[in-house]
């Protein structure tokens, strides 16, 4: 398995038939400049596209807002930006390394949950996510947030994993194929063969993307 960004880029360049390798992603050569532009985006696209077991993470979320005041909202006690969006009890911060939120679960108890309940949630963009002061005031900057009704919520998500030593071999191959397609586009090369390669490796990756992958 490749261990550096440059190795991945060079594998992709080999697939395109490009005559030069890069030594450093920041070296400024045409291939390095294109590689720098497309590498991170392509990696994240592929991480999000399938359920790669190596990118699954579970973390306790940080509470931003909620629960609403006792008795709920009414004309005397109307909703304001210090509360979560109506319809939800809590607003949590979106994990910074989260590419695709998959599930919200409650904090685990001493025993396995033998009567599982679903959790409703939604990802929003809150312009005033930070609540401070007495009386409380909501302020910016705007941020991606998670709305749900789960107390002490945990998030299960696909994370941005940059450590290549944890990658699946099939993920690496799929990334190389996808990068090769983008290099060909950038260099004005023929695309058909590379598109077929991407489709082939994506199909193989499908089988390796289960939870036990």
């Amino acid at each position, binding site marked *: 398995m490749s261990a550096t960004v440059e190795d991945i880029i060079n594998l992709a360049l080999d697939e395109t038939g490009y005559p030069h390798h890069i030594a450093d992603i920041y070296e400024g050569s045409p291939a390095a400049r294109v590689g720098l532009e497309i590498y991170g985006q392509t990696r994240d696209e592929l991480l999000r596209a399938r359920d790669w077991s190596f990118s699954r993470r579970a973390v306790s979320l940080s509470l931003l807002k909620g629960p609403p005041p*006792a008795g709920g909202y009414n004309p005397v006690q109307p909703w304001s930006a210090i509360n979560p969006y109506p319809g939800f009890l809590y607003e949590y911060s979106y994990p910074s390394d989260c590419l695709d939120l*998959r*599930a919200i679960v409650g904090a685990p108890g001493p025993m396995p*949950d*033998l*009567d*599982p309940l679903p959790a409703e949630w939604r990802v929003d963009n809150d312009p005033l996510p930070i609540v401070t002061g007495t009386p409380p005031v909501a302020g910016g900057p705007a941020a991606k947030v998670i709305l749900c009704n789960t107390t002490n919520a945990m998030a299960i998500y696909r994370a941005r994993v940059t450590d290549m030593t944890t990658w699946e071999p099939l993920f690496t191959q799929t990334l190389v194929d996808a990068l090769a397609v983008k290099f060909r586009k950038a260099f004005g090369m023929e695309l058909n063969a590379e598109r077929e390669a991407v489709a082939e490796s994506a199909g193989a990756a499908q089988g390796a993307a*289960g*939870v036990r992958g």
Partner: protein
Amino acid sequence: MSGPGIAYLQTPARIVNEALDALARPEKAIGDLSDGTAIAEAARRNYGQLLRQLLRTAHWNFARKQAPLTLLADATGATPNVSTSVEQGWTYAYAWPIDGMAARWLPSSPPTSTATVLTGSPALFPPIPQMPNRFLVSSSDLYPVEVGQLPWMQMPDLQRTQGVGPVSRRIILTDAVNALFVYTRLVTAIEEWDSLFRQAMVALLALTLAPVAVEDPKERLALRNALIAAAKMTIADARVANGNDAGYPQSTDHTPLWISARSSGWRGSDGNSLGLSGWTYYPYDASMSWCGSVF
């Protein structure tokens, strides 16, 4: 051969994975219902509902429970600290058991002693069979669980409590004092399930997960039709076996009413025969089920 380890409970994930096996999709096996995969999330949405649905399809022996009911109201006013508001025609209102799935019957006389009795020589006289008491499952907003403006953190967990809403709740009306209730309880521990019930749960879950687990629409449709037939058969088999295993007569509690009514006419809870024969209109849970099985 497995060595010494922790004897841990089976989790719903095992049932889900057996359902995926039934769908010929073992590669989609989950680790836990919190995996966050499409299968795990679909299972999480449906597992609890399917379990409750299946528990109600028969009077499963493994789920039978007898327990005293919690008094909510006494129309006579003889019980301190409870309401006297009871629907007309009834003396007591009791709370539906928090783990109650289906009512079975309400014995007439609760035991007076809870002391453990060891088996000794046979009794000279067999115990008098308990007669069923009149009862009606209803709902009422007279006994709310949440009073006033409770902070959200102090709200009761109604999702895991059967028959209780924020305002109204399911109740049992009866004339029985200190009522005991025989009912089907919510059994979530898989180890307690009957093996045929477990297979029926797998079949139902496979049927529910098929649209998520099978990508090809044609295959999905064909599989679903086959699964519907299989699930019905599995449930029917489980119900028949359950009825056969229930004891003799079919309940250890009482003679089924359809037998007693056929042979001697209907008897009221006070023992007075009203001379009625044939079927009864009281919900004593002793009638034949719609498929001909006796529960």
